[in-house]
């Protein structure tokens, strides 16, 4: 009988600890499938961050390094500079990346580190029980914005993809979601594109995945998906913010499109001309 579906080898057998309806599981799977599809499981090195996915290193089956809160892009820099031909990625939440780790993400992008960032934006600090994140929507109730986020008191959300796309070092930045089959397929395409960008040494790539946190949003999983579509997408429109015109051939080889100057100048991103 033909196999129509099987678990990906990119994930270990360990059961996820994520809450029912949480998008982290779907996103893990997409990353894992991309590793397998590109024959990268044996060479890739991933960097787990601090958040609900602190132990994603137990699930994703390539080599994994656990980083301190917000520091994953710096850790990935240290790895990638040594393993220039291996796929190196970080998996970071919005508290991790957009709050405590702003310096690290901005400078990794500015240096055009040839790494890929999977940025999971669920508009709250999931792990520490739903505090306001830099990405929390205006009016959104969290444990630390009990009357809803009030810009006059708590400021405005940070649109990470938009602001990072202004940096010359960023090669490819796209925002996706995984609320339904079509969007999941689209997210997978984006992750594959980021993989290609890195493989061709074009520089920094980031895929922002809008994600639900049913537990801390206090919503049932399906309602949470709808809430994401209705509210988060307004603040965080889906789409490609940088590198939309970059194309690859069927073998994943770079064909055309605007890329950072670093990628033009160096065969190997991260090597200095002496």
């Amino acid at each position, binding site marked *: 009988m033909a196999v129509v579906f099987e678990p990906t080898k990119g994930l*270990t057998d360990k059961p996820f600890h994520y809450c029912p309806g949480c998008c982290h599981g779907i996103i893990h799977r997409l990353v894992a499938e991309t590793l397998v599809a590109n024959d990268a*499981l*044996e*060479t*890739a*090195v991933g*960097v*787990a961050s601090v958040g609900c996915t*602190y*132990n994603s*290193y*137990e699930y994703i*089956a*390539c*080599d*994994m*390094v*656990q*980083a*301190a809160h917000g*520091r994953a892009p*710096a*850790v*990935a*820099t*240290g*790895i*990638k*500079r*040594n*393993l220039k031909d*291996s796929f190196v990625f970080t998996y970071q939440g919005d508290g991790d990346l957009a709050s405590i780790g702003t*310096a*690290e993400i*901005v*400078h990794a992008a500015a*240096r055009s580190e040839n790494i890929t960032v999977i940025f999971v934006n669920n508009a709250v600090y999931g792990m520490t029980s739903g505090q306001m994140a830099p990405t929390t929507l205006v009016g959104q109730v969290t444990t630390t914005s009990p009357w809803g986020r009030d810009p006059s008191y708590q400021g405005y959300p940070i649109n990470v993809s938009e602001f990072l796309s202004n940096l010359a070092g960023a090669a490819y930045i796209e925002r996706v979601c995984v609320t339904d089959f079509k969007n999941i397929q689209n997210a997978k395409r984006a992750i594959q594109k980021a993989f290609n960008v890195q493989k061709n040494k074009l520089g920094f790539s980031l895929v922002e995945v809008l994600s639900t946190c049913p537990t801390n949003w206090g919503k049932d999983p399906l309602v949470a998906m709808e809430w994401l579509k209705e509210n988060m997408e307004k603040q965080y429109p889906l789409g490609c913010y940088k590198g939309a015109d970059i194309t690859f051939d069927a073998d994943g080889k770079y064909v055309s499109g605007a890329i950072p100057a670093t990628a033009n100048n160096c065969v190997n991103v*991260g090597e*200095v001309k*002496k």
Partner: protein
Amino acid sequence: MAQKRVLMKGNEVIAEAAIRAGCRNYFGYPITPQTEVMHYMAKKMVQVGGNFVQAESEVAAINMVYGAAAAGFRVMTSSSSPGISLKQEGISYIAGAELPAVVVNIVRAGPGLGGIQPAQGDYFQATKGGGHGDYRNIVIAPASVQELYELVVEAFNLADKYRMTCMIVGDGTLGQMMEPVAFRDEEPIVNVEKPWAACGRKGDSFHHTVTSIYIDPDVLEKKNLELQDKYKIVEANEVRYEAINMEDAEIVITAFATCSRICRNVIRQAAELGIKVGMIRPITLWPFPYKAISEAADMSSVKAFLDVELNAGQMIEDVRLGANGKKPVYFHGRLGGNLPMQKEILDKIVAIHEGKITEGGNF
């Protein structure tokens, strides 16, 4: 072995020694008075095909160190006191994940932004933790440029051997001073296998994971006990110190690094006054040479210790632990980036010898 002697600055020797030790990764952030380490690396590291990254902060730099070490590569960062404070989070993670790393602290006077002159006020931070959790760093305090060279090379071997941070503690004087160095033709590099490194599975049936988080208390306790066992081995095997003029010594000076060089001259001056002064100079601040201090305290000739430091009295606590109340421990220190004059120390020795001051001491 053919040795060529060259006149070099301490900070540059640190960088050169690292490269000679096979280190091909340097990540740092500018700060006085260690800047020359970085300048040297910016050029030399790139020329030898290694990685040099000027990080956005010391926090980022130490995490780049963490990444390179996790992937199995020799790596170094350097900074000075305020920057080392920022690195403490990363150093704690490096301890937890058991990664080999070399961290150089060219200490300046604190607290806060303090000043840029030489000091030893980071002794507690370096030897008693610094970051969170129960962990240790091997802490080495060279006293000359030649020693700086040899001990930086050694630091990489020790870091690899024990999978922990090896910290070189210097100060502005040592970093800035020029002295002749005799480089070896070949460095005694000990290459160790790193089967734990996360650099790709490459056919292994399991994936390598580098982490410091263990949510289960029993697992974490076991992990901690393993760390403590490792530290005991380091304590048993890696204590280094220099004993100077200890035979028949009446007063034993304890001092490290730059401060010990000033004290060395005082020994001679005291001898001219008929006072026999010896010195124990810890080279490893952790593990600390408690036994050497204890044995000195047992010597019938020894009347007292005089601990001299460029701080308000930090190593003195370890000297007291070693002496264990058997002999009094006096103190002389300077603060703010000032160095003691030889005369100040000599006066104190005379006063101790004549029984004119009380234990502890002033500045």
